[in-house]
């Protein structure tokens, strides 16, 4: 089996419009969550989110492009451009034929849907923009990335709610490991911060009105974010041959299903997913120094996930660092695992563990080292990134320093 490494990364999210700014914010423990600025916000009971601010699409795209790009596609393209530029890759005709892109998203072009539902239902008009369908389809972002870079190999979108981008990156990892492709762009993109996107979530009664405080005894629920992160996954020898800078190695992946409940998480499923990733990576639990938790800040997730981590890591759970960066960038739903992988790479490469901010009081049900409020310097050689989706679909990635 071939080895798979990461040779490029790019992002746009509430913490920054690129990787450098985002990692600086994580290091400083900044919170990108604030009052939402969107149409009809006064009709929402949830009015905070991790919104991408000071973003002017026209600075990045032409008018013709913007007619085709929903906000989630714009985010994906901006992140992909940065990742490819940083990787130094040149997608030649020959490489382009075998390279592809796999992106996660849960809502796809939700902004486009929201706007056009308003047009026909609220405003009573009988005509919508002719490009609504190609803008809103879930694979729009992946397709536009493939067109931008001439990627003509395997490309598709993955939609498994909050695990979408971990499933997507796992697929990219497997494609390269099996020899099907030497280079894949992968990650996720989401733009659910619109009236309909938040209104739907309000109904579940799991959203916080004040802050995302994972693992803290006074946590009050999840907070949505938006944005994208895209990575260049590359076959190890291919990367070495061109002298690429290698950010980290992807060493394991596991995906399992709870087959039990459409919203409640399962400890057993989380345990199987983490153990599966360790086994696939050939890692002993004690080798793992950091887990980027799913850590949504809901009572159901945080208790279940902490119990699962305690079970998987045994005594080592006391030394393990576990943080949820959702406290800073919000829950990006289908893009969340991608943005969170940035924190994993930072831990492995720079020895900086991103904190869980907004943490006030320990919860006996979450008795782990959650790296509260301040980033920490620590040498870490292997880490896990967890994603546990509604619908009981779990996907865990294992990374190693290289």
């Amino acid at each position, binding site marked *: 089996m071939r080895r798979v490494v990461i040779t490029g990364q790019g992002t746009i999210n509430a913490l920054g419009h690129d990787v450098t700014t985002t990692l600086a914010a994580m290091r400083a423990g900044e919170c990108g969550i604030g009052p939402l600025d969107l149409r009809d916000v006064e009709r929402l*009971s949830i009015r905070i989110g991790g919104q991408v601010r000071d973003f002017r699409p026209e600075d990045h795209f032409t008018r013709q492009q913007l007619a085709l790009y929903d906000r989630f596609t714009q985010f994906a393209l901006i992140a992909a451009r940065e990742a490819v530029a940083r990787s130094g890759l040149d997608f030649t005709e020959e490489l382009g034929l075998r390279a592809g892109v796999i992106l996660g998203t849960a809502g796809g072009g939700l902004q486009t849907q929201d706007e056009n539902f308003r047009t026909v239902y609220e405003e009573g008009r009988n005509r919508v923009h002719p490009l609504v369908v190609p803008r809103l389809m879930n694979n729009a972002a992946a397709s536009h990335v493939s067109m931008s870079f001439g990627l003509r190999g395997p490309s598709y979108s993955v939609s498994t709610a909050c695990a979408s981008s971990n499933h997507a990156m796992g697929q990219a990892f497997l494609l390269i490991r099996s020899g099907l492709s030497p280079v894949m762009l992968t990650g996720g993109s989401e733009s659910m911060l619109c009236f309909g996107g938040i209104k739907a979530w309000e*109904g*579940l*009664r*799991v*959203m*916080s009105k004040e802050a995302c405080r994972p693992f803290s005894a006074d*946590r*009050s*629920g999840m907070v949505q974010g938006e944005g994208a992160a895209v990575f260049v996954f590359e076959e190890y020898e291919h990367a070495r041959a061109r002298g690429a800078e290698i950010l980290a190695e992807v060493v394991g992946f596991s995906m399992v299903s709870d087959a039990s409940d*459409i*919203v*409640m998480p399962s400890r057993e499923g989380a345990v199987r997913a983490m153990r599966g990733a360790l086994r696939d990576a050939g890692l002993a639990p004690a080798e793992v120094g950091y887990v980027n938790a799913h850590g949504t*800040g*809901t*009572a*159901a997730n945080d208790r279940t996930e902490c119990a699962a981590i305690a079970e998987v890591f045994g005594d080592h759970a006391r030394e393990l660092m576990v943080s949820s960066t959702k406290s800073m960038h919000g829950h990006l739903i289908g893009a969340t695992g991608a943005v969170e992988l940035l924190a994993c790479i930072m831990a492995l490469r720079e020895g900086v563990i991103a904190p869980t901010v907004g943490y006030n009081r320990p919860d006996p049900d979450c008795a782990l080292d959650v790296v509260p409020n301040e980033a920490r310097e620590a040498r870490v050689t292997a880490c896990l990134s967890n994603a546990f989706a509604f619908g009981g679909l779990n996907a865990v990635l294992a990374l190693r320093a290289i």
Partner: protein
Amino acid sequence: MTVSVRDRVLQIIAEQVVLDVSDIGDEATLEDLGIDSLGLVEAVFALEEEFDIEIPFNANQPDQSRFDISTVSGIVRAVETLVAARTV
């Protein structure tokens, strides 16, 4: 008025758990009735729609909701209070 709110609440809960209204005791807890977390948010939604009220319930902080909605009688009282506040 009180009787009517109570009856309407019981009707909504009965529909949720597929029981006869007469089979639902005032002191029954939601757990007794087999209402899980999803059933609870559905019931809260149905009550809000029926009475045009907003029930301040967050599934992450059930203890901190200003109303006790763990039993049938608690729900009836909560709805009565919210309905009264609405009509002031």
